[in-house]
């Protein structure tokens, strides 16, 4: 039942309603809705929200719960306290390598791929001939799936016997002997770097496009003012453009961190995330789904991943909240 009949409202001009201090605008609009409309709105939000809560946040909570059990999917669930975590941090041999690979992934993205994307965006932001061609080329890897990126780079990295391009070129040019040709993806001390180059190939273009869009939205008069004050291009970028790009910078940071935590596909394509390519994500699936059925143990790794992910998520939400308030 609506609180106000529509007829009662129609003659009342908006200014009068707005002037009434006791009833803020919000209330007025709310009460304009008929009961049927309210129910409709409730379902429009409620049904998707319920599904989302169950499938995403509900499963997250179940993951957290399972992490304290030794469930194997068959036996009844038994609570084991922190056992999974103790085992994870002390005796399980792949946890620390996986975590350090995720950290390495993040560092390479933060100190190489992301700055590279920003640099390309700054270069392409000038009014120059050929900009759109460069942009298309740099961005094309982004529309390929990470799994496909894995296949495409395997053609480069395969060992000599697998007809990989890099090794064939190195041997043909006499740089290395066939016996010494590196096994880029098979050698556990270098394969993470090989994979990171492939991942950066895609990440650079992604950051470039995001940043380029941000640069285009910067008020040109700011740059003109800086130029009149005698600032050179580098000074203009670091002291004028970069600070006003703060909102985009947050997005870039969040995207970079999230992408490094989600890393899965390329490592899986290369060797299912083993032998030098362990990642938290591949440990979860290998332990709980693909190879073993240690649901409790896999969930404990998922909890570690969740806790790390909450950092960028919190940063992002703070920003969303702040901009909602303003």
């Amino acid at each position: 039942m609506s609180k106000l009949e529509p007829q009662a409202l129609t003659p009342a001009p908006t200014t009068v309603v707005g002037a009434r201090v006791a009833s803020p605008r919000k209330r007025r609009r709310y009460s304009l809705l008929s009961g049927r409309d309210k129910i409709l709105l409730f379902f429009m939000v409620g049904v998707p929200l319920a599904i989302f809560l169950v499938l995403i946040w509900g499963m997250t909570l179940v993951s957290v719960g399972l992490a304290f059990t030794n469930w194997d999917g068959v036996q009844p669930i038994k609570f084991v306290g922190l056992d999974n975590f103790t085992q994870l941090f002390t005796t399980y041999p792949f946890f620390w390598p996986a975590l350090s690979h995720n950290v390495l992934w993040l560092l390479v993205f933060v100190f190489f791929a992301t700055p590279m994307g920003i640099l390309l965006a700054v270069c392409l932001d000038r009014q120059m001939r050929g900009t759109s061609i460069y942009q298309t080329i740099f961005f094309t890897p982004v529309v390929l799936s990470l799994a496909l990126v894995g296949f495409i780079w395997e053609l480069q990295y395969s060992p000599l016997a697998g007809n990989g391009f890099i090794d064939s070129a190195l041997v043909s040019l006499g740089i290395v002997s066939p016996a010494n040709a590196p096994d880029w993806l098979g050698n556990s001390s270098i394969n993470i770097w090989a994979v990171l180059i492939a991942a950066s190939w895609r990440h650079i273009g992604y950051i470039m496009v995001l940043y380029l869009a941000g640069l285009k939205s910067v008020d040109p008069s700011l740059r003109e003012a800086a130029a009149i004050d005698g600032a050179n291009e580098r000074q203009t970028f670091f002291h004028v453009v970069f600070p006003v790009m703060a909102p985009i910078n947050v997005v870039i940071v969040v995207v970079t961190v999230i992408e490094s935590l989600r890393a899965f596909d390329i490592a899986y394509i290369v060797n299912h995330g083993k032998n030098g390519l362990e990642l938290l994500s591949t440990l979860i699936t290998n332990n709980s789904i693909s190879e073993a059925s240690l649901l409790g143990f896999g969930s404990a790794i998922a909890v570690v991943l969740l806790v790390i992910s909450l950092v960028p998520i919190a940063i992002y939400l703070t920003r969303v909240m702040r901009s909602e308030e303003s």
Partner: protein
Amino acid sequence: MSVTVMAGQRTTHNRARRRLSRVGLHIFLSVLAFIFAWPLLYALYMSLRRYGDIVANPNGPFSLPSTLSLDNYTFVWNSYPFLGYYWNTAVITIPALILTLWISSMVAFAISKYSWRFNLLVLMIFTAGNLLPPQVIIVPLFRLYNLTFANLPAIPVLSQLSDNGRIYDQFIGLILIHTTFQTGFCTFVLSNYMKTLSKELVEAAMMDGAGVFTIYRRIILPLCTPALAALATLLFTWIYNDFFWALMLFKSGDKRPITAALNNLSGQFFTDPTVVAAASIMAAIPTVVVYLLLQRYFVSGLTLGSAKG
């Protein structure tokens, strides 16, 4: 007089320097563009070569071809149900895309055009959920998908859409998780977009007695066409490119969409890069074509997500 001469000298000097730096920039960008294009160009080149040709040459793939042909493509097409893989992708991608846009536009409409107490909370639940790594939820989700309907609350529609009594290994399962996950992102983008639309339109329509659904369908949705087009382009690419969900939530190779199905082929042709290359190019074509044709929408979709938030 001397001042103007000096100033004139300085500008020509500056112009020369600027031109030089511009040439340097072009060289830098061209070299980088070549490095970026190389892996794909090489894959294309490889897909056109003959395996025997590479093996016979002492330099292996680092050599010029004796012939180029489309033989590898015909081989891949005839040996594997590629048409079926594309079809699987379409059966998953198209419904998921439409559902996502429909659902997220409704949620975005309700939370951006009407003031509720929990607006911000709802927005945060969707946005934060979209940022979670999928691996965080995969273990319980995998179990949930494997429950048979007998153990689930009876949902009659499901039995029509599943042939194994579960949603594991079913298109419906993949559509469900894609729609849910992507709704987070799209709701966020669309609610920002709708906030930029004028409030007066909705208020005027309300005064005229238009109901909520009419306002959504006749006023807001048409105004959101640019954002919806941009999101559709993005969603197509993302869902098409999904590897993780399809790998985890499908058992049988033949039901998998193309990106995940490639994983079935890789083992068998590890030593024949020409076949791997041809299969990769075939899997890449749809997204690359969509990107080249709809580049504008693609870029504006990504931008919408980050511009104002």
